[in-house]
């Protein structure tokens, strides 16, 4: 007959397999902090350097009839920030998962990405359409709303805190839509401050 230790070992194995196969726990807290810092820098640059702070839904940045009204530098800044944040998250999560002896790209992370992709792609396309119609003021709050929805969906496959973060982002997005002149501020709080707070929380709660 087996010893007591073996039974407890059996149960521990069951627990860890259930968790490992249903939750993606290699998400790095530092990635959140870094993404928050990038976002704050980007928000500051777009405000201070490019003078981007639309206070109306159809904010005239260029000539209204000229189609796309965003200066290309601003678009590059946005895309650059996004790529940098995603790159950092993938890199740090890869490191964390190999430390845990897991693969980053497994059935759980796949499911999480698929859950996030639907609202993100929808939101991304919608924002492009809004921008091309000159509704520049809605871009920042709408990105918050759709990112929040994506996080809320992803929350089922990873730390529960992600769900809460998603709700907060959606709330900020709704506020930003109501008060467009605070859109950029809400964006900076949502993508900057909240990410940093979330990252520190994850780090102290799960990574020490």
């Amino acid at each position, binding site marked *: 007959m087996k010893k007591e230790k073996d039974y407890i070992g059996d149960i521990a*194995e069951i627990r860890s397999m*259930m968790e490992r*196969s249903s939750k993606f726990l290699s998400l790095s807290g530092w990635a959140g902090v870094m993404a928050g810092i990038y976002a704050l820098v980007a928000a500051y640059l777009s405000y201070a350097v490019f003078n981007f702070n639309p206070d109306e839904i159809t904010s005239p940045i260029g000539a209204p009839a000229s189609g796309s009204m965003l200066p290309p530098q601003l678009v590059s800044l946005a895309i650059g920030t996004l790529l940098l944040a995603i790159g950092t998250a993938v890199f740090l999560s890869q490191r964390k998962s190999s430390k845990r002896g897991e693969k980053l790209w497994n059935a759980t992370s796949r499911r999480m990405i698929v859950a996030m992709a639907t609202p993100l792609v929808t939101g991304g396309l919608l924002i492009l359409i809004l921008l091309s119609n000159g509704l520049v003021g809605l871009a920042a709050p709408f990105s918050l709303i759709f990112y929040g929805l994506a996080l809320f969906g992803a929350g089922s496959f990873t730390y529960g805190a992600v769900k809460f973060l998603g709700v907060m982002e959606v709330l900020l997005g709704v506020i930003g839509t109501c008060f467009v002149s605070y859109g950029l501020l809400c964006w900076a709080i949502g993508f900057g401050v909240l990410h940093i707070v979330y990252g520190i929380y994850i780090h102290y709660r799960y990574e020490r």
Partner: protein
Amino acid sequence: MKLAIDGLYKAFESRVRLGIMSVLTVNDTLDFNALKEFLDLTDGNLASHIKALEKEQFIGVTKSFVGRKPNTQYFITDIGKTAFNQHLKALEQLIELQK
């Protein structure tokens, strides 16, 4: 026949099989490669454990094709769920007794 004296299922004696049952409890269906990754096993090792659990009808298999590639999905059966729950209960009781 399937039960040992203490209420534990013989089929779940190996850790690997407990792992397979745990993973399939929380996932509706999984393919062979996903199971292999989670459990960190070789093909042959996993296949033999799966076969044993299949024989007891604790897990089921659906085979289909994705394009031309065969795609095998594994899932837990009702019999398997009941057996796994009973096995867990028995484990709990044994630990309680030994305290």
